[in-house]
């Protein structure tokens, strides 16, 4: 009996794709002085649009515009007034949700069901949540009348292009800062539609500026003397460079970097739901998630049973056209990232881990990688230590809770962790000992604007979301 689901693609026309996009500076869309970049659809390798990029002079103009907007308008505007603008942005994102979701899937490669059900609604939710804070900062726990910092320079990655822009812009605006944001070079399109929304919401010119470009534009931005605060989400390597260059400048910095999260499954776990959590933890967004549960630590007594269930489940994941509503795993964002995943997978094989890859069909064109699970992994292997940022899971075993904690914490990172057990006391015992900014219990990869998110050690510092996230944008 075979039941092949007919293709159910979302219409590409909904994305309103334009042949070219321009940067957003001081309330206007203008040509940038940098070399234009071409944004590619990773599922087909075709060029989607040409995007103008910023030059050093553009960065300077943007920071000055943001400063003017901060001094003259935004920094002194009552919170209740700021909130009106932010609510308006939140509503307009929700109204254009379908367009943004399709555009995000085209540009990034993530499946439409994720951009539709997670990225875009959560982006809107972040604006709604932070709009609520704008006139209540007196009650945020930082004393009366906490002051904004000034101009925030923000650099975001390609894995959640619109959502990361929302995570950065919403709290900055709510606290009274102005923004210059650089989206990732491979995924600039939804941030520029967000700029359109910001323009239509009649946010005063210069409050938000969006400058596409590569790493050099990011460097120019974070090192600009007119910037008071830098927020970066991306690789640990770049995060370290930024921290080094900012040392002694007085700029405030928050970093949200890589991770190698442990998802710990005890023998008394709800196994079928643990399997779901493991799948969600590592195959959500093709594993392009800094908090991905990329190390599965499973108690040895249930390892075989769990792995058998896991393989059965992973075999049902549908890899393919990101615009198809039935696709579970979409395209790897770039050829460069695909090469890195392949290189790390090869190291896993040569270091002796036992590779299993889903037998699912994979499109010939585009950047795709079938979901892969490595068993018999030890902490010494590269696939257990390095962030793969792809749909590749490393499975390790443990015998006792102490050993689970020791192995889970045995990483220079510390962004997230998962605990699976039906025993409430064990959840608390473990969460107490895990060095990770977020600890999920009997679930994984759940995001909410009210919950602070951030890391330990090489996963960065500072929090985004919740009351704790406001601190990053206030002079406290």
């Amino acid at each position, binding site marked *: *009996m075979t*039941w*092949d689901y*007919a293709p159910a693609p979302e219409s590409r026309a909904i994305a309103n794709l334009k042949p070219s996009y321009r940067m957003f500076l001081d309330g206007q869309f203008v040509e940038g002085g940098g070399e234009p970049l071409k944004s590619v659809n990773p599922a087909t390798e075709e060029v989607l649009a040409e995007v103008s990029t910023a030059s050093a002079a553009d960065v300077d103009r943007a920071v000055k515009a943001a400063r003017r907007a901060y001094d003259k308008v935004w920094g002194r505007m009552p919170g209740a007034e700021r909130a009106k603008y932010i609510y308006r942005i939140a509503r307009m994102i929700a109204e254009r949700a379908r367009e943004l979701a399709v555009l995000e899937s085209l540009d990034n490669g993530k499946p439409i069901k994720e951009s539709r059900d997670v990225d875009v609604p959560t982006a809107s939710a972040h604006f709604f949540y932070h709009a609520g804070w704008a006139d209540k900062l007196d009650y945020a726990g930082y004393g009366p009348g906490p002051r904004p910092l000034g101009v925030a320079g923000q650099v975001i990655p390609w894995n959640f292009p619109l959502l990361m822009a929302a995570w950065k812009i919403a709290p900055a605006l709510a606290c009274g800062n102005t923004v210059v944001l650089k989206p990732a070079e491979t995924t600039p399109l939804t941030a520029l539609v967000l700029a359109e929304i910001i323009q239509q919401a009649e946010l005063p010119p210069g409050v938000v500026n969006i400058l596409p470009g590569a790493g050099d534009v990011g460097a120019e931005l974070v090192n600009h003397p007119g910037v008071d605060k830098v927020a970066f989400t991306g690789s640990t390597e770049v995060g370290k460079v930024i921290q080094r260059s900012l040392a002694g400048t007085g700029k405030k910095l928050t970093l949200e970097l890589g991770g190698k999260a442990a998802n710990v499954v005890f023998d008394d*776990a709800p*196994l079928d*739901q643990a399997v*779901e959590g493991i799948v969600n933890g590592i195959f959500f967004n093709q594993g392009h998630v800094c908090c991905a549960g990329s190390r599965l630590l499973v108690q040895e007594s249930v390892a075989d049973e769990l792995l058998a269930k896991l393989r059965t489940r992973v075999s049902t994941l549908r890899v393919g056209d990101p615009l198809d*509503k039935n696709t579970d795993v979409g395209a790897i964002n770039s050829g460069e990232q695909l090469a890195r995943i392949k290189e790390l997978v090869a190291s896993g094989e040569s270091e002796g881990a036992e590779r299993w890859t889903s037998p699912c069909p994979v499109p010939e064109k585009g950047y795709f990688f079938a979901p892969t699970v490595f068993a018999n992994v030890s902490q010494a292997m590269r696939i257990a230590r390095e962030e793969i940022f792809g749909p590749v899971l490393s499975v390790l075993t443990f015998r006792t809770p102490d050993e689970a904690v020791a192995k889970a914490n045995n990483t220079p990172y510390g962004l997230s962790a998962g605990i699976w057990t039906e025993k409430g006391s064990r959840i608390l015992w473990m969460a107490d000992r895990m060095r990770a900014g977020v600890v999920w219990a009997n679930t994984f990869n759940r995001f909410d604007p009210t919950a602070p998110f951030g890391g330990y050690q090489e996963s960065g510092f500072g929090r985004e979301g919740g009351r704790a996230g406001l601190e990053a944008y206030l002079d406290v």
Partner: protein
Amino acid sequence: MSDVQTTAAPPEFADATRDDTALRRFLHGLPGVDQVGVEQRAAGLATRSIKKDSKLWAIDTAISMVDLTTLEGADTEGKVRSLCAKARRPDPDFPDVPQVGAVCVYPDMVATAVKALDGADIGIASVATAFPSGRSSLSIKLEDTRMAVEAGATEIDMVIDRGAFLSGKYMRVFEEIRAVKAACGSAHLKVILETGELATYDNVRRASWLALLAGGDFIKTSTGKVSPAATLPVTHVMLQAVHDWHAATGEHRGVKPAGGIRTTKDAIRYLVAVHEVAGPAWLDPHLFRFGASSLLNDLLMQRRTQLAGHYSGPDYVTVD
């Protein structure tokens, strides 16, 4: 593939049913079910988009899985005869529409159904064992079963003793299912768990395994007389149980959600769960049924829509 007559518990599980203590240990040793997780998974799968040919295939498959049901105090011979006519020819304008899986009636209506379905390859299911509450003595329940079987029922839908289950008397439930199974003879046994009264997913999982251990050919969610009746997450847990049973024993057992499934959209969501949780082998009327009455006409209307490219209306399908 699927017409396996189940008898005793397979040797793998002989120890589990040795005595009351062993059975309790076995059922309580099954992995728990996390409510949030299973509901999230069920909701996620419900977003699958089934279109075009795959939708038409699903509609025809769903029709062939319908246990066309009437279980009313007001049932008459005339009502049962007209139900059987509907079962034979669901849509008179389209003779290629598959027949339904079975009709499902009370024991005293079995003889009428047998006569009305003479010569058709359609199952005759009868509820039994003091349906729907199951509150009677074992001897009456067995007599109820025998009466239906002797009248010609090919499938028996029994109810478990939920009172015994909820008070932890698992062996009593087990032995009752065994006894009914024996009384069924060659008729297939569907064991109704009445999940709306079991309340927790952990209980649903335990009751599913209990029924499988005792030899139920099918596990069925509900009588349709208790709310909530069938839900997607409950059916997920039961599909997982038959999947795991197959992995352990090599035997295929069936699942039947019943009650509250009224639309094609709902039915397709259930089929997606069957496909992706139990596996493609379960997309077969021998292993999956819908206990429903109004669902059939919605399937027929959607089938016409798929073929014609436009909606017709409820006056174009027969009401029986």
